């Protein structure tokens, strides 16, 4: 398939995944801010900014960290390239580029999301109706994935699209885990209850709360959380699950001379697949995740070089 | 008259140039006026050939490697027979050459100037003389994108501008005329050997009008390509990606066989 089309599909899927992440992160942060002790409220609210590395942009545009400012910045602001509004616009822009490769259903799911979002933005979002917008974002994301899964031919177009989803997802999981873990460990020293909420927030942000309870029960242990989100292949947003998909997809994509992305992905996959919690503990979770993020970034870059780098 | 020709075109770039494709009209055709005895075009890229709508031979060169300099060389031996131009050496009826192009479109000033002349050889020779009086030969004041009207206003230019103005005037008064690019053999050391002139159709035959040299016969001219204007007949036309600023250096030698270069 066309290199440019592969690139558009890859980025389209990444952007849509990013929209969902943004909404989940903000949702959890707003809820946590209500639970948290007042002096930590601001720290709670700033989590989505830390995960996406947009604290500076936010400070420049808004200054005060308030729920409404965050809602405006993260959901609707077109000056912020990672706002839900901006990423859905970028996703649709990419979709428009590859309309020839999309089924009518997939195209419509994205086009409709864009049209509805414009409407939402026009009306404005406040703290009191924000949760409806979060639900909307998640739903749109599900519809897109459903349409893609249910109607796209299983060819390289599909594979590149899925690659985008899983690269973005792996990246997000690692970042959220890293930041939330640090915050939880910090509060563990002072307020054990607070720490419990932190872990809960982390699991909710990654849609893994039920999975945790199912696997480990109610008692939340830091290393259990890490194990769940890194090593468990059956948790959809775990690094293991993402890497398994990525390695698989690269295996299926028709490639001429291209070998490097596949090699990098397979090696990182093996690393996780045969890893265990002792190894992660020995290295330190933060160091482990920092290394992981660098490697996933390299894989993403290499995919673009191997298949889209014309 | 047998002539040796060597023509080097060198492009240098101040940043690496990654990709380039060029249309090179650097190969003269065999005609009753010129017999090609040897000819060779050398380039640093991959080449293939085509013949364009005007019947010109075009070398298409592509470069897919990164460089900071390109040198193109055309060289060979051509025998000029001294025969006059014939009427059917073009795939077109002469009327095609009444067509204006963006480079030859006549403005008010050119129209006013051209209206003083008429469609016969004597009048056109007078026009040629008047153009050279009006437009000083001055390298460096115009570029390949200058139109006839701009050069006419500026009262200065090179052979290509003189030729465009001549063409613009002829077409305005209903004389079919074509642009010719090629080489000229002169005894002057200073004159550039790459050259441009015009050929006008006067009812029965094509006639040479070399404005810059005020010549009416092509006794020392080697024809590379013809067209409606410079763009059609340009010896080198290319496009590239990367490379930053480009500087172009052209040198050409036309010597009589036996002479030293």
């Amino acid at each position, binding site marked *: 398939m*066309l290199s440019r089309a592969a690139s558009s599909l890859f980025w389209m899927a990444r952007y849509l995944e990013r929209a969902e992440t943004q909404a989940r992160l903000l949702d959890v942060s707003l809820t946590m801010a209500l639970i948290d002790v007042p002096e930590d409220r601001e720290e709670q609210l700033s989590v989505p900014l830390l995960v996406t590395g947009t604290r500076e942009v936010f400070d420049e545009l808004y200054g005060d960290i308030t729920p409404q400012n965050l809602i405006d910045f993260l959901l609707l602001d077109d000056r912020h390239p990672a706002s839900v509004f901006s990423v859905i616009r970028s996703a649709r822009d990419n979709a428009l580029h590859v309309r*020839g490769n999309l089924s009518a259903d997939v195209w419509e799911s994205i086009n409709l999301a864009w049209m509805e979002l414009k409407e939402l933005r026009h009306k404005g979002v406040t703290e009191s109706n924000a949760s409806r917008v979060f639900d909307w974002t998640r739903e749109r994301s599900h519809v897109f994935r459903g349409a893609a899964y249910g109607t796209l031919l299983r060819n390289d177009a599909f594979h590149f699209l899925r690659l985008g989803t899983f690269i973005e997802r792996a990246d997000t999981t690692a970042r959220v885990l890293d930041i939330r873990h640090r915050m939880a460990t910090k509060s563990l020293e002072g307020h054990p209850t607070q720490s419990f909420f932190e872990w809960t927030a982390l699991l909710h942000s990654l849609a893994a709360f039920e999975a945790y309870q199912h696997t480990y029960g109610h008692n939340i242990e830091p290393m259990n959380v890490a194990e769940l989100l890194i090593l468990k292949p059956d948790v959809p947003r775990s690094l293991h699950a993402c890497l398994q998909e990525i390695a698989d997809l690269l295996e299926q994509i028709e490639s001429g001379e291209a070998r490097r992305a596949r090699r990098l992905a397979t090696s990182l996959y093996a690393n996780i697949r045969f890893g265990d919690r002792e190894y992660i503990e020995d290295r330190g979770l933060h160091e482990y995740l920092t290394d992981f993020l660098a490697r996933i970034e390299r894989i993403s870059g290499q995919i673009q070089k191997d298949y889209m780098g014309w | 008259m047998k002539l040796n020709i060597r023509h080097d075109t060198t492009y240098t770039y101040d940043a690496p140039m990654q990709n380039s494709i060029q249309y090179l009209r650097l190969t003269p055709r065999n005609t009753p006026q010129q017999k090609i005895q040897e000819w060779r075009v050398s380039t640093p890229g991959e080449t293939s050939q085509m013949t364009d709508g005007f019947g010109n031979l075009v070398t298409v060169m592509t470069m897919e490697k990164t460089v900071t300099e390109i040198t193109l060389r055309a060289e060979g031996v051509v025998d000029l027979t001294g025969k006059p131009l014939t009427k059917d050496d073009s795939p*077109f009826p002469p009327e095609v050459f009444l067509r204006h192009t963006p480079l030859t479109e006549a403005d008010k000033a050119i129209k006013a100037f051209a209206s003083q002349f008429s469609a016969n050889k004597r009048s056109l020779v007078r026009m040629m003389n008047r153009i050279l009086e009006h437009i000083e030969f001055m390298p460096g004041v115009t570029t390949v994108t200058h139109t006839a009207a701009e050069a006419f206003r500026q009262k200065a230019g090179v052979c290509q501008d003189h030729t465009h103005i001549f063409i613009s005037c002829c077409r305005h008064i209903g004389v079919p005329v074509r642009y010719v690019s090629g080489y000229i053999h002169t005894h002057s050391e200073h004159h550039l050997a790459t050259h441009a002139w015009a050929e006008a159709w006067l009812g029965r035959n094509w006639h040479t009008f070399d404005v810059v040299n005020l010549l009416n016969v092509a006794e020392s001219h080697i024809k590379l390509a013809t067209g409606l204007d410079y763009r059609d007949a340009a010896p080198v036309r290319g496009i590239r990606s990367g490379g930053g600023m480009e500087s172009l250096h052209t040198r050409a030698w036309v010597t009589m066989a036996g002479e030293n270069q």
Partner: protein
Amino acid sequence: MVMLIQTPPEGIYDELFDENNRVRPSCRMLEDWLIKSDEDLLAEKRREADVLFQRLGITFNVYGEDQGAERLIPFDLIPRVISASDWQRLQAGLRQRVQALNRFLFDIYHDFDIIRAGVISAEQVFANPQYQPGMQNLKLPRNLYSHIAGIDLIRHNDGDFYVLEDNLRCPSGVSYMLENRRMMMRLFPELFAQAPVAPVEHYPALLGETLRAASLRSNPTVVVLTPGRFNSAYFEHAFLARQMGIELVEGADLFIRNNKVYMKTTIGPQQVDVIYRRIDDDFLDPLAGNPDSMLGVPGLYAAYRTGNVVLANAMGTGVADDKAIYPFVPEMIRFYLGEEPILKNVPTWQGRKPKDLSYILDNLPDLVVKETQGAGGYGMLIGPKATKKEISHFRKLLKARPDNYIAQPTLSLSTCPTFVEEGVAPRHLDLRPFVLSGKKVQMVPGGLTRVALKEGSLVVNSSQGGGTKDTWVLEDDQC
């Protein structure tokens, strides 16, 4: 609520009603339906259609507005019906006309027989802005130039179809023809159960077949070349590519090596044999046309000249669809095919012919006078609507430069009931069938019907408030 259906003004041909305001036999099935539907139902269906079109993204971009501006072309729910016998004649006429136009294009880029025979003057061809000297003596497979032609027709008072204009460059609108049909079937399935409407859904398959036949290679690789997503017809480019299952490429996706065209794919370069291009001639290759063009492919002209790629349509087809050449099409049909033209041209008087000129000058108040090189309604006189002063001004212009002008009678376009604010009222329309030339000349029954939504307006262009309708060609006139 009973719906009020306005009947057409006298003297105008209406597609639904005959001169006694009775529904034409071919439209009987619409009569019941129209009477039973009330305005609220139609209004609701129209809203449904709007939402569906928006969701599908069947929009066109408006130049000059901000990048997000995407508009819908208004879609009218009441179909326009063409009888089987009318279509038979139209089809034969279109086939004949397009064949002659292709022969003409071959001729003026090779031996100039028609000029030598004195049928058309050299100047009219060679001075034409759309003429491409670069096409001279290029051998094209099957000698085909306009693989895809869109012929604009109108129906006059006399009930006959007249050709208003030939479109031989990149005619657009076919996606609306297809989507309009899909929409009608979705909104009113019951109508199709009763009426023998000829299908149009196979157009993409025929187009694909035509494009493959444009190359002599077996199993050629075909692509659609678009200027990109900001082009007003981008939706159609993507739509057709998807329907044909071929790649939609932009200039930057292609490159030239050894005079061959390749596209950049995830597994390396892949050679392209046929390009269905939706980019104008001048932008195809910056080394041959406009040097500032970023849309095209440098070197494409060389690949084309050397026969390594086929462009559909060919370069230089615009010369044959020009206003100045239009009056000669009937002559072309006689000259190349030795046949009498089946479809009528709008009678055209040419200022350059002394006899025509005196007719024009004598009848200015009744004629439409157009500048041969003018476009978009500039330099035009509409006699019946002009003041005495304007007419005398044009009289002077015509006398000074008769070559620059042609004149035509003022034709009335036929009308068809259309759902507008005031209810159902007659509106003027035209028809653009799409004619495909490959191994043979084929077309799907019908075409795009454009309708002027303003009362009395004759302007059907979407940029000026025109809409579209589904076009029904009946398979059989007996029912």
